[in-house]
């Protein structure tokens, strides 16, 4: 299960999200795919994969790879954490 770090400030620009890690003063932008996944948190990787596959009509393997890439980007920046 993944959840948002409570220390993150979010600016929603409709087609993208800008995340500011308050403790680290670092910013990170999410495109529409990342925005969809962020807004679905907290969720498991499986739930996020199904959501992405359904929303964008992607094959399961590609959706899973995309979800893992986004989760990895977010977790190394301390924007989300596994619980």
């Amino acid at each position, binding site marked *: 299960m993944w959840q948002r770090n409570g220390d993150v400030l979010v600016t929603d620009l409709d087609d*993208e999200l800008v995340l500011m890690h*308050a403790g680290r003063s670092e910013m990170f932008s999410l495109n529409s795919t990342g925005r969809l996944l962020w807004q679905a948190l907290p969720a498991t990787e499986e739930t996020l994969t199904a959501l992405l596959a359904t929303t964008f009509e992607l094959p399961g393997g590609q959706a899973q790879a995309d979800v893992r890439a986004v989760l990895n980007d977010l977790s190394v920046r301390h924007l989300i954490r596994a619980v």
Partner: protein
Amino acid sequence: MADAPPTPEQTAWPSLDALVNCAPDVPPTWLDALRYDWGLGCPAQQSAAAARRIEVQVGPLPPLPSGAVTREVALPDGAAQAQVLGDELWLGGRLHVRLGARLSVLTCGPQGAGRDLWALAFTEAHRAAGWVPLHAALIAGQGGVVAVTGPSGAGKTTACLRLRAAGWTVLAEDRAWIGPGGQAAGLDRTLRALDDSLALFAPEWLGGAPAHRDGRGKRLLPLAAPPVSLPLTAVLLLGHAGALGPADRVREFWQATGVPLGAAGQQAVSAAAQRLVQTVLWRPAGREELLSLVPELLGAPLHTDSA
């Protein structure tokens, strides 16, 4: 001989749209320094002043709870440690701040606190009520206010001098504040400039009475507050190449304002980021371009003189 008791003007004064109340045992030297740095009001918000208060008192700081998170905070003359737990802050071991949208209480230990720590405390108190500080100059005209921001050395002060010489009202040199309703206010009392800059851009201010100067030898030119509150209409970025997309505007916003420590301030300033990047014009501007851009954005100056 005992010191004279502080006057009501020393102990109660407006700061933006808040009323600051200082306890009777706050030393007079602290009162004067705090009022000088923070005692400027926002004209259209007088009726709201009583609705929001900042209390300043002297006393022991509450004990630090185990759940507080330690943050390193950059200050103009160094760094300080802050401990944060929700809307409670312990600053440099000298100040405790309890934040709220309607009431913030600032408690200072008897040993006192440096100007930078007090600045952090007042900044957090205003942020908790939805005010956003911007490291920017503010230029006012009949059409509202533009903020001019950019990295140090980009030319904000020179822009202020040139625009002031052209009749525009400078509200702030670098301590700009934007209220929750979009109103712009400055907390600078003076514009600071070296004589060399004045000789180039505003030679008429070199004469007259002996100048007041800051520690770096800069001449202090008094700034006049406008009689009415004016809305922020644009943010102009000096030293920024290329167009600004929405995400760029968010980045510039956070760079100009910094990240609040307190939870209420973080939520309020985050909401302001969303609002300001979508409702206010953000665009890069060159130093020379400012002189034509400001009239284009603001119409006519507020006054016919150059105050």
